[in-house]
Every structure is written in C-alpha cells, then in structure tokens.
C-alpha cells in the first residue's frame, strides 16, 4: 500500500487558475523521490496537499491508505504527525530557542521533556547547531535556519519526510551532509520526497524524479 497516492488531482487557490492539473502518482513506503520543476510549476502546492495545508479541488488524495476527503477532522492532526516538513521559508517560531524549535513536534505529540531532550541535543549536534541551542532563530544565518528546520522535521522520526528546497541556503558541503541525513532516514524506513532546483543534488543521489511543468506531472522524456 503506497503511503502517498494521488489520482487525477487538481488544485487551485481560491477562485484562481489551477496550479496543479490532473496529477497522479504514488510513493511506496520507504521510497526516495525528488520533485523537480521550474519556479511556479506547482512543487510547493503539491507538497501542501501532502502535508494537509490545502485541499485538492478535484481528484483523490490518499495518505497511508486513507482517502483524505473522508478522514474525520479530529484524525487529521495524527496524520500530520506522521509527516515531517521542511518548509521553504523555514517557519521557525521566532520566540523559541533553537532547542525548543527542534523539540516542537515531540512536545505537540505529548512527550515528556526528559524522554526526548538527549535525542534533540544529539540531533542538533549532528546538524551542526550544538553550540547554538540557546540561540533565537533571528540570530541564525540562513543555513543555520535551514538546518534547524530540517532537525525539527525529522526529530519525531516521521513516516514521510517532505522537504521544499532544503539545500537552498547551505554550502555544498552542508548540502551533501544533509543529503546523507535524508538517505540515512530513508534507510531507516522513512519515505522521502524532496522538492528542489539543485540538479547536482538530484544527480548525486540518483533517485527517481517526479517532474512538474505548469502544474502537470511529466513522465521522463515527455515534453509538454
């Protein structure tokens, strides 16, 4: 059973034009995909449908085998907890420290602080923020914010990891390091979908690619 399945999915913002049109694909458990396409092709919109920030205007979206349109509103938070998201604009909580930001999903899941603080600290060391755990996001560089956003997305070992341009603000060495983190998580069973412009990253990882053009999913070799 695929963890993510789209069937004839279209999406629009309000009464605007469709940003996604008749999209269909599925992600098998433990798979690793890249999502590529030019700016405005619909990459972020597609991710939004998966992390339940938006609803499809047409078609069927299934997560973990459940049709999202039929899921009770009270169950949606529990589905969201199974999905880690690295937002393009980071979306860090500016009034919380690096440590608190990274620990946020665990706190929301109702875990006691003493059960996760060592894990959070270890993860922050791993992404190179071990010395900045006190710091507020406003004092971090773009790359540090990126790494913090990634740490927050993976801290609760999600079933699916979605990342929107996760290497956009980091140097090549860190980019490679983050890719290794994603690969490692994938090896542990997490399904990974990374939206990126970084062709070098895509080439280096040698993983399947979903390519969007003007809101449509294009098969390899297919030109619109």
């Amino acid at each position, binding site marked *: 059973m695929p963890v993510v399945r789209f069937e004839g999915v279209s999406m629009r913002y309000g009464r605007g034009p469709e940003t996604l049109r008749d999209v269909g694909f599925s992600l098998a458990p433990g798979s690793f995909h890249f999502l590529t396409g030019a700016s405005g092709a619909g990459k972020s919109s597609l991710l939004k449908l998966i992390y339940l920030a938006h609803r499809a205007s047409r078609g069927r979206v299934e997560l973990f085998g459940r049709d999202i349109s039929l899921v009770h509103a009270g169950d949606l*938070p529990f589905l969201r907890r199974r999905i880690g998201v690295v937002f393009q604009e980071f*979306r860090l909580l500016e*009034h919380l420290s690096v440590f608190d930001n990274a620990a946020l999903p665990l*706190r929301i899941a109702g875990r006691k602080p003493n059960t996760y603080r060592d894990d959070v600290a270890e993860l922050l060391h791993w992404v190179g923020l071990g010395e900045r755990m006190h710091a507020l996001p406003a004092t971090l560089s773009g790359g540090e914010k990126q790494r913090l956003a990634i740490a927050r997305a993976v801290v609760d070992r999600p079933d699916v990891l979605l990342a929107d341009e996760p290497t956009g603000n980091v140097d090549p060495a860190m980019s490679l390091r983050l890719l290794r983190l994603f690969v490692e998580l994938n090896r542990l069973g997490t399904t990974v979908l990374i939206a990126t412009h970084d062709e070098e990253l895509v080439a280096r990882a040698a993983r399947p690619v979903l390519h969007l053009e003007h809101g449509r999913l294009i098969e390899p070799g297919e030109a619109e």
Partner: protein
Amino acid sequence: MSGPFDLNRWKPGPLLPPRDARDGALVFVVAVLCFLACLTALAALAANRAADGWSAQLSGSATVVVRAKAGETPDSAAARAAETLAGVKGVSQAQALTKDKAEALLEPWIGRDALVADLPTPRLVTLDLDPKAPASAEALTKALHEAAVDAVVDDHSRWIADIERGAGLARWAALGVFGLIAAAAAAVITFATRAGLAARHEVIEVLHLSGAEAGFIAKLFQNRFAAMAASAGLLGGAAAVIVGVTARLAGGGAGLTPVLPLAWIDLLAPLPCPLIAALVAGLAARAAALRLLRDMP
C-alpha cells in the same frame, strides 16, 4: 543567552509569543468591566440589606385604629384596646396614643382648623411585636373582637410586600447589569482572541501543521487570556473594594447612607471576581480560537 546549554536545566519555553503592547489595553478594559461588575454587586447587596432593614422595622410593629363605641370616650376605648393587646402572645408593648398625638398625625391631611373638638378623631394604639414570634394580625383582631373593641389592625403587611417587591426588582436589575457586563467582557475577550490569533497566525499555522490538535492550540489561548483576565479581575475587584471601604468609612456606622447601608462583610463580594473573570475569558478565548481553527484545512 550566554554559557553552555545545560540540558538538565532546560525547560520548554512558552508556545505562544510573550505578551505584546495590546495586552495592556485589554487588561485595562477588562479591569474596568470587573470594577463595574463588583460595584453592581456591592450596590445590590446594599439595596438588599436596606430592604431587609425596612421589612424588619415594619414587621416588628403594628398599628391599631380604635373607634369609640357609644357611651365610651375615644381615650378610654384606646386604653382598653392597649390593655387587651398587651396580653396577646407576641406583643412586647402596646401604647395608646393621646388625642394630641392622634390629631398631630391627622393635621397634615385635614389641617388644624378642621380639627374641631367634637370631631370623632380615631385613636391609635401602637404595638411593638416580639421580633422572634410576632403576633399575627388575625390574633390581634380576634383578641380585640373578644374584648368588644371596635378597631382595625394594620400589620404593615401591604408595605412589607411593596418593599420586598422593590428589593426583588433591585436584585434582578443588579443581576441583569452584572450579566450585561459579563457579556461585554466576553465580547471584548473574543475580539482580543481573534486579534491575537491573527497576529500569531504564523505560530498557529506551524503548530497546526506539526500535528497540534485544535483543543491543544485553543488551550494555549484559553490559558493566556484566563491569566490575563484574572489579573484584570484582581485589579478591578481591588478598586471596587477600595471604593466600598471609602464609602463605608465616609458614611459612618450606618454605611454610605442609612438608605443604602453597606456592611464590612459585603466588601468580600468582589473576592471571586478574578476567578469569574478568568472563567469568562478562558471560555470566550477557547470558543473564539476553536471557531477560527475550524476554518483551517
């Protein structure tokens, strides 16, 4: 923050950003509403106390109008009535008013010139009743009837009923004003919660997308606004107590005025104000937050 991060001393930070400048204005408005609510409660208590006092005074006494029978002078009829009534159970004292006093009572109504000597002025007997077990009008009438005295007993019950009706009206009016103020406070809090949610939309969205349940997020706002309203309630309640103490001291032993007496114990009325304010604010904030979260995907 300086120094190495001490994991053992780490405590999770507040999920909602610290208070902002608008919170001060909200505390002020809620404090004023709480102050008005407490003053209403104090006024209601004072009105109630006044009504009780008047009722007690009226129910502790009765008046008997005595008409002389043929062959009897009004004064002797009144004296006989007083003597009869003094022996009735529940009567502490019975006193016949003299002719002068009876005429003095009538003077404002019919004037001095009209009080001609041969006008059969009725005589009055005033009764002080036992406050614990006052004699009923029926018992007094029966005793007078048995003693063959022609008299009408007025136990003031008509006035007591009027006063009780008035006191009841004052109580309901106070309750109505109190309800209005509580509703206004709830509306203010609801408005502030919506503004708070709008201002912290980014935070709410991150919590929401990270899997926070609506109840979890609503609770953050509920607790935030309940704490704020509790401190506002404390300020408003304290201000009302200060006004009450000032009124009590300025009014001497009988309170603000003998018409609106305020007892020291009445000044405890604003005590639950912070709790009630917190409850109203917490519920209003929770409802507003849940309503807004319902619209999120």
